[in-house]
């Protein structure tokens, strides 16, 4: 016991209060009421948070109780069945993992497999997206000395602009992609590995909203982008290293401030 631990020291010398245990027991017993009254009296955001937490606790408790009950039941069942006859088709423990596959099941599996392969080429995780109107995509920018010309457009969504992009002279520049909304990296999830990597974007393959947006490099939800996967060390069937892969954007980039995409494999 270190020198400064005066609470412990005192406890060691003089012990606890004579009714310490009793008080603790009572406190424990009353805690349910305290919690209930708190849950009852809280209001606003505090109540929301508290109730959420309570909900979680209760769910866990319920699960635990269920588990206990099931175990007890199982034990009872086991006891009951011990003296009954062995069921038909029962297999000894060392043969359990050798599943007998019925012929019909094999057939159905192969059909499913084939269908999946066929469809897989064109399948994307987000097959449908909401159409974005042009006035939502672009903001009109007034130009000219009197600010009376309205032929320029500012892109209001996140865009990808390649490294070698050079601006046209402002006089001919119809579409402006603001610096603050340009993105270079995407958080790409590999669906099989269930891991996420932060990868460089190489380009926009297709924007479902239209060809113009693809050309402008606008990244909206559902856009297929090309990402640099050279660091992941993926290899093709023929043994070549894969440099880039396609991924579909799964979120509204302009609302979240980041690109979350799913690798298309």
């Amino acid at each position, binding site marked *: 016991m*270190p020198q*400064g631990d005066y609470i412990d020291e005192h406890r060691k010398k003089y012990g606890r209060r004579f009714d310490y245990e009793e008080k603790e027991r009572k406190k424990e017993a009353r805690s349910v009421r305290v919690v209930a009254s708190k849950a009852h009296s809280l209001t606003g955001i505090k109540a929301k948070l508290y109730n959420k937490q309570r909900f979680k606790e209760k769910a866990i408790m319920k699960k635990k109780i269920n588990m206990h009950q099931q175990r007890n039941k199982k034990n009872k069942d086991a006891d009951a069945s011990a003296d009954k006859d062995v069921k038909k088709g029962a297999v000894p423990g060392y043969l359990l993992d050798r599943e007998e596959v019925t012929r019909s099941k094999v057939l159905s599996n192969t059909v499913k497999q084939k269908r999946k392969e066929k469809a897989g080429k064109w399948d994307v995780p987000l097959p449908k997206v909401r159409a974005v109107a042009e006035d939502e995509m672009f903001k009109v920018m007034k130009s000219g000395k009197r600010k009376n010309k309205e032929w320029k457009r500012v892109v209001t969504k996140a865009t990808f602009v390649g490294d070698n992009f050079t601006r046209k002279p402002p006089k001919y520049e119809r579409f402006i992609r603001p610096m603050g*909304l340009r993105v270079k990296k995407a958080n790409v999830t590999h669906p099989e590995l269930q891991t996420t990597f932060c990868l460089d974007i190489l380009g926009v393959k297709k924007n479902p909203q239209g060809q113009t947006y693809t050309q402008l490099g606008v990244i909206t939800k559902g856009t297929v982008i090309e990402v640099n996967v050279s660091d992941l060390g993926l290899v093709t069937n023929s043994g070549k290293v894969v440099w880039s892969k396609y991924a579909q954007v799964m979120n*509204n980039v*302009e609302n979240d401030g980041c690109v979350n995409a799913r690798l298309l494999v």
Partner: protein
Amino acid sequence: MVVYNFKKIQTVPTSTEFVDVVLSRTQRKTPTVVHKGYAITRIRAFYMRKVKYTQSTFHEKLTQILDDFPRLEELHPFYADLINVLYDRDHYKLALGQLAKARSLVDGIAKDYLKLLKYGDSLYRCKQLKRAALGRMCTLMKRHTSSLQYLEQVRQHMGRLPSIDPATRTLLVAGFPNVGKSSFMNKVTRADVDVQPYAFTTKSLFVGHMDYKYLRWQVIDTPGILDHSLEERNTIEMQSITALAHLRAAVLFFIDPSEQCGYALHQQIELLRGMAPLFQNKPLIVVLNKTDLQWEEELSDEHRQALAALGPSVDQAVSSGNVESIDVDALLEMSQSKPDDQPAHVVMKMSSLSEQGIAQVRSVACDLLLRQRVDAKLRGKRMSGALNRLHVAQPAARDARRRPPVIPSSVQRKLDDLDKAAMATAAGTSDDEQENGDPDVTMDEDTPIRGEAKNPSLGRKLERDRMWELGGPGVFASDWRREYRDLQRAEWAYDIIPEIVDGHNIADFVDPDIEQKLLDLEREEEARVAAEEEVMEEEDEDGPVLTAEQLERVRAIREKRAVLRQESWMEKTKNRPSVPASRLGKRTRVEEHLEAHLNEMGMHEEDAQDVAEGIADKMPLRKAAKRRRLVEVEETETQMIERKEALDAAARKAGFANANQKAFAKKVAARKQAKIHARTRQHGDGDRHIPNLRPRHLFSGKRGMGKTQRR
């Protein structure tokens, strides 16, 4: 001087608490109401403020943590090493480094999202961006759960570290486990260290304080050290090593030759040898503990030699029991002038159980350390700097004559007497002084010897002497009444005086000069009585002689005066509503009274009335004027004509034909004026009002809705 107090570090919250605190603070301290219809700049500013505020709160809280925890590079090496031993330096630095990194990341997130918020074009988008920003900051903090937890534990432990001052005078108690280090510590200081008959009772550093030579000393008890290599040492032992390595202290190395501790003597001596590098430049005293177990007789020759080889023993000093006679210089010389190259130490015997030699060990250690510190200070640069500036002037001798100080012969005689008395008392008490059987260690040896019968320098019994005779401090209560000197009789001093009499505290009524004052009063009264008598006598002698008739009149006058006084008093003090004199009629009360009075006095009725009216006329003007109105005065014809002509003349001067025209004009004017007043809601000519045509509050400040021209 830096004071190491780690108690001030604020609690480190857990990551969930951290997030809760920060978010609820943002919620409380920033505006919460925003609407879609607001200007987009306003909506953007609303959300940007939230993001910025959250970031600054995170920043502030993290900075607080980072600033609170001491930086190992800036600490005294002792504390730096102790923290390394206890909490692992790498772990400590990593945890703080992670928080520093988190801080900069939070700043980065805020910067990014503020940039994005500038392009927010709807409330929904701004809100989503804000949500994402706060969410990312909170996730970031959640990742540092373990760092925060670790830092909180470190904080709690650090707050309870003993506050050791590495710079002050320190005695360091070291040695094998169970050799009696803590027992010694408990004897010399008030630190209450646990003492048990098994090894490793003490598991951390303990600090205690004591006084010696009017100085504060710090004593540090360390956990026991075993005799093995540094790599094998555990955290408990490493604390001792840290203290030994970094504190400039006198080391008391405890050895238990009786081997009651469970470790062999040669092991202990081996440890002492092995640790030699740590003892360099420090006074080292080897303490052979537990002498009460009589190990000296049972010691084998081998062991005896091994002990003798350690260094010069101070047995002599210990046996004589006289602390002051240990000569520090001699000790130093002894310990340094050893022929072989092995380091030599001062060796002392002691027993903390029978309390033998404790005081000696302590004082030798303190003296050695003090000597060393003083030497170091003298050698230091600062000292020479001070000495260079010192100059003691010695006046050159003028001639060969001696000039001793002059002491008057009477004073000299008195001094001689005092000396003699002191000699006599010293001879009487010298016996008590020599047997110094119980060394009271916590008491300072330098304090004056208690229980001396008489103070020799004053030659009379002091209250302090009386105290020692009558049971010492705490028992003795001083008798103040013995000092009551101004009483007429000595036995009055012990009279019982009540504190409260009739509900009064008598102390409030005590007047030391009361007797004197009373005497003065009596004398004054006597004088006054005498003076009065004298006057009476004088009057008796040649007072005015009145006839019986005169006396009668005087009596009547006095009676009348008394009656009047009574009446007026009744008039004055009556408490009821009364009719004012002006309403009573033309005759005032004064008049009535006067008339009645004059009648009574025997004046003729009409005369009395005239006189009364005459007097009343001289009264204040207002009353006189009233009276005049009441008295009808007949105007003669000529007088009337005269008056009219005068009035006409005045009217003509003003441009009218006559007074009538003037009056008419006046009337017409008044009527017209009244019409105007009625129209303008005026009460009269005096009721003039200049309206404020351009009230300031309507024509200054901000303007909303429209323009100056059109609104």
